[in-house]
């Protein structure tokens, strides 16, 4: 039995966002939404994390960083793009410095739109990602 559904640890990274989505992510940790009751912990370290939750878009400065953090996460892992900037660049997509959504750099499993993305949507996204995670683990174990 896989325990990822019961103990999903996530690392949150903010690309070049306005911080609106970040605040919504932090709001999930507050008593109002309380994601810890699902066992979700916001770790600050990719080596401890299963879920890579990215807000904000990719620019020249953070493209390597996003890739590094993703690479440093141990298998199995999933990526959630939270907020429209992470999905596609959002309203900043045409800017000279923005390369686009994070799927330009790393494979994304769940897209959660919103500007700013709502905590309920984030939690929904995480739940979807967990199903993908479990599936990925089962496939890796079978191989």
């Amino acid at each position, binding site marked *: 039995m896989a325990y990822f559904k019961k103990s999903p640890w996530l690392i949150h990274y903010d690309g070049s966002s306005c911080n609106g989505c970040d605040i919504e992510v932090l709001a999930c940790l507050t008593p109002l939404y309380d994601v810890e009751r699902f066992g979700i912990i916001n770790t600050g370290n*990719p080596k401890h994390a299963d879920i890579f939750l990215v807000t904000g878009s990719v620019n020249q400065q953070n493209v390597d*960083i996003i890739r*590094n953090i993703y*690479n*440093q996460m141990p*298998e199995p892992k999933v990526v959630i793009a939270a907020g429209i900037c992470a999905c596609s660049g959002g309203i900043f997509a045409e800017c000279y410095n923005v390369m686009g959504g994070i799927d330009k750099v790393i494979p994304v499993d769940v897209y959660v739109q919103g500007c700013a993305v709502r905590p309920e949507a984030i939690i929904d996204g995480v739940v979807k990602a967990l199903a993908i995670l479990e599936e990925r683990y089962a496939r890796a174990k079978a191989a």
Partner: protein
Amino acid sequence: MTALLFLILFPLIPAVLLLAVKHDGARGVITRLAVGVIVAASIGLPWLMNAGLPVYFSFDAEWAGKAMFFIEIFLAGLIFFLGLKYKHYLTSVLITLQFALMAWYEFSLSGTVTIQQHLFLDRLSLIMAIIIGVIGGLICVYALGYMRDFHDHHREMPDRRPYFFFVMFVFLSAMFGLVFANNLVWLFFFWEVTTLCSFLLIGYTKTAEATTNAFKALIMNLGGGLAFAGAIVWLAWSGGPLELKALIASPQAMVMIPVALLCFAGITKSAQMPFSSWLLGAMVAPTPTSALLHSSTMVKAGVYLVLRLAPVLAGSYVGAAVALVGGVTFLLAAFIAISQSNAKKVLAYSTVSNLGLIVTCAGVGTAAAVWAGIFLIIFHAVAKSLLFLCVGTLEHRIGSRDIEDMDNILIKMPTLAVMVLIGIGGMFVAPFGMLISKWAAIRAFVHAGPVMSPILILLLAYGSAVTVFFWTKWMAKIMEVSVLRTGHDPLEDAISYDERFAHWAHTVLTIGVCLAFPLVSSQLVEPYVAEVFGQAAGMEAGNLMLTGIMVALILILPTIAFPYQRKAGYVFGTAYMAGLNEYPDRMYDGSLSQRRKATLKNYYLAGIFGEEKFMKVGVLAGTCLLALMLGAALL
């Protein structure tokens, strides 16, 4: 008795030979042969004795006494002259005073004194003799390789290696004499010879710094020697015993003053506060000197004397003062060691600190405390010598003796790095010997008395916490690896066979003594304590077994766990650098797209544990305590 005389006199032969030999190969042959003989003789001592221990020897030693006096005249003249030549006038003053006292003794008082048993061998002497013979011998072998490298690296310094080895072997001879002497006058003679050897070896490189530090050591030790001479004169004048064993058995009230003076001598020789600075200054000497004189043997002579006097010190005010000197030294030297990044200075301060603990045990003077003190001597001698030898070799290979430069040596010089780790572990980690001794010391201090116990426990508790800090810090630096192994590194190949042999022997000894600890306790230390105190002291059988198991485990576990990783299927990744690109050797892309190197330094907490601050505190505290000690003796 021939065995004892052999050990005292034999090292003089290679000493003189080595003074004459300039060729390195011949030097090597002579040294190795001589060391072999010395090691065999010291280990073989119990079998060379016909009777059981302790055994005393009396013989007609008129000639020996006269010979020693003539040598003393010569040495006093030499030191007097050197003091004038180098303008360290205090030296000349001190040696004049000391010589005056001894001359007074020799010419007017010695007639009133009868000393019959000049030499003796008991278990404590045996332990010391084995340490001197084995550890001292190994260090001399090590010195062959080390000094060759030393002069290769320092071509500007005059190559005085014949002289160096001469003094090293003379020193060994003097140390044997010191631990076998029952006659206090003889003991004093050998004591002063060791002072001279230390002076000569510290000043070996003849740089200005070396000369200054050599004289600092000489002055402080001459001060101790003066006290020693004073004790001899007082005893002769008051009709007290001039034999060590008889002195120890005397009632306290009669001999407190000479005992206090002797403790003063022991305190200067073992670099306790306020005299610690000479040992620190002595670190400019080549590493074999630091290992032999200033950690394993000569400074042990100081604590050996104080430990011998423990039965007389027990329960007295002088004993309490001595214990406090030791305790304060233990604490303050450990504090200062935190703020040092020079490896030899860390080792020096740690030596001073551990000697302080031994002096405390001696000052407390109970059977349990002396048991702990003897084991501290044994384990410290072996482990500290290992560390000094490894650090010396390390310094020659990596060109630095700073701890901050010792990262990645696990990759560059794996064997040496593991030996350093074992050495450091041997200094403070359970279940190695030093920890056992510290454990025993704590137990002994609990029963030291209503006033002394809380103070000593406090000193020990804080000092012990601090030792964990600075040793683990160093180990952590050695464990730090940030480069990849790139095949066979020639750094380790360049280490000479002599040095390698000494390292291996020391490592085996460090571990072996821990494993043999129950045996050493039951065969040597417990009988000695029983003989001197009439009480038993020791460790419960359960604990003995436990420590033995743990020593085995601490060696086996990492060795098993290390290759197991191949099976466990670990993935290798880069270190976490907050997502920044990481390149080999800890380079990363920093701000403004500059490639920088991350440097990691240990915490030295110089603001909290500064050397200057605590040396001042130590000198002040030590001086006050010594004044109290001498005052208490007079009462």
